[in-house]
């Protein structure tokens, strides 16, 4: 399928500790097309983060098949995975995860250090301008507000010009106004660049501003809701 961005088949993830086995995902099937703006919703422990981590190659599935842009992640070794992660995927986290010793611009430049050769990376300064932070280039994370931090994180996720943007609770630490602003930015990127975006969130209102909501509960898909525009 040429226009498939993420394709999960009987995707299963079990976390085992010494005392118990937690089944985070119970053989779910999900198909996300290129250019879709999708929200994953559900209560805590429903498997949202697990799903995003699997898609972002931060974790490996226990069983099942997961094709990201046409490659099965189970078959790839760690070196290839980190290559794909840096070439095709951008990740935004709830806690921003910026590096405190680097300023805004350097944080955005960081993925470029690891990427070595880049075909079509975007100029970090242009990106920061785009997210509305051109006056904050040399500010360090402790000098920025929550909304600004998340914008820097988004710029960092976009600097390698990814095809898929994953965001795990990106508004969890933001106020309503900043949260809305972030989703507006996502919508803009989705429309203008055709970026595939998958966001996990608790926020029902924000979820309804996307194209599609996948409701997860106890590791299973409860409802796959396509929103009519």
């Amino acid at each position: 399928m040429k226009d498939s961005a993420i394709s999960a088949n009987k995707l299963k993830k079990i976390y085992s500790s010494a005392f118990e086995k937690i089944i985070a995902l119970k053989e779910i099937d999900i198909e996300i097309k290129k250019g879709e703006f999708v929200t994953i919703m559900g209560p805590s422990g429903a498997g949202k983060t697990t799903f995003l981590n699997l898609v972002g190659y931060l974790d490996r599935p226990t069983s099942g098949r997961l094709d990201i842009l046409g490659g099965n992640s189970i078959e790839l070794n760690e070196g290839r995975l980190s290559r794909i992660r840096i070439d095709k995927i951008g990740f935004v986290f709830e806690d921003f995860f910026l590096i405190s010793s680097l300023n805004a611009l350097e944080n955005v430049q960081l993925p470029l250090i690891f990427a070595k050769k880049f075909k079509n990376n975007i100029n970090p300064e242009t990106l920061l301008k785009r997210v509305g932070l051109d006056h904050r280039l040399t500010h360090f994370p402790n000098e920025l507000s929550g909304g600004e931090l998340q914008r820097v994180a988004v710029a960092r996720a976009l600097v390698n010009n990814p095809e898929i943007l994953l965001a795990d609770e990106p508004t969890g630490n933001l106020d309503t106004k900043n949260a809305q602003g972030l989703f507006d930015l996502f919508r803009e990127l989705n429309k203008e660049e055709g970026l595939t975006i998958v966001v996990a969130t608790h926020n029902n209102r924000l979820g309804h501003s996307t194209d599609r909501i996948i409701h997860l509960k106890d590791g299973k898909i409860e409802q796959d809701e396509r929103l009519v525009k």
Partner: protein
Amino acid sequence: MKFFILAYKNLKRRKSRSFLTIGGVAVAVAVLVCLLGFNAGYQGALTSDIDKMGYQVVVTAKGCPYEAATMILNGEAGLKFIDEDIYKQITSDPDIDKITPLLAQLAYDPEKMEGKGGFTNYLGIEESYMPLKPNVEIIEGKWFSGNDVNEVILGYEAAESEQKSVGDKISIPGKDIVFTIVGIFNRTGSQEDGTVFLPLKTTQRIFDTEGKLTGIGIKLKQIEKISEFEDRLYPIASIQVISMSQVKGTILNLVNSAKILIMSVAFIAIFVAIIGVINTILMSVFERTQEIGIMKAIGASRLDIFQLIWMETLIVCTLGGIFGSMIAFFGGNLVELLVRNVMPYAPGGRLLLITPELLLFSFLGVIIVGIISGLYPAFKAASMRPIEVIRSGE
């Protein structure tokens, strides 16, 4: 932005810790440089000292060879006496090229060293002394006017420190005789520069040691014949034959045991520095667990993280190497002073020979140490899994 800058910024975050670690490496490098410099310098200085002595063989009274060796090199030739007859007896030996009798004496001079007091060396010599000492010449004045006259020739430093010149009078502490300075020897760079030379007969008379010598300096026609020569002298019970190469060996043996001791100190210093480096980097790796996870999550490969942490270690070791070399280079004189006080025998010339090659060698050494000590922390960091790392921050 490059890896290097990223690594540098990480180190800058904990300034005092990085600085102390670098200091530890610097001290280890400085110790190593000084030690190796001493190794090269001491041996060179000793060899040149012994070459300057002129004679290859010294005959002295029997005694402790270590004591004798040290005394001979101090120009004292041992304070046990042998009969002058022995000199006459062996002069005719067919293997001898040149031979000269020596009578060394010591006198305590309370005026010496600006009133602190000290010993002055006196050496009774004959004209045959000069051919055995090709690098000794009279730069001012002339040789003694007779065999038993109250005249002295001063070593270069003796003249300099007493501020005497030819024609001046000098007295020997405790002796009621005035001597005329008739000559001054050139600077030879050996202990004899501080010695006062008198005619042999005069020395015997003044110090009440008539018919006695403390040593006989000999140059053989062929140094290879030394053992045969020694065998011939063996029946004379009261003497021993010491060759200068033996003396050198004896002193080097003494120095070697000290060297082993210092060497182990240097190795401990290096070992401690390595552990310090590993500890610092490992600590900063664990502190940055989350950060390393983030880097991996945004696309850093294992190799990237490995390189980054490794680079930090290398920066620490390189800076330590630079500072250590500087400390060794500029602090070398202090160490030289210290070593001179501790060593059983310190030859003239520089004891600490710090050459560019030596600095380069130590520097490369510390880089290699850095490469090795960075391996474990870098590997540890590279093996962190992004997902676990990110969770640990929550």
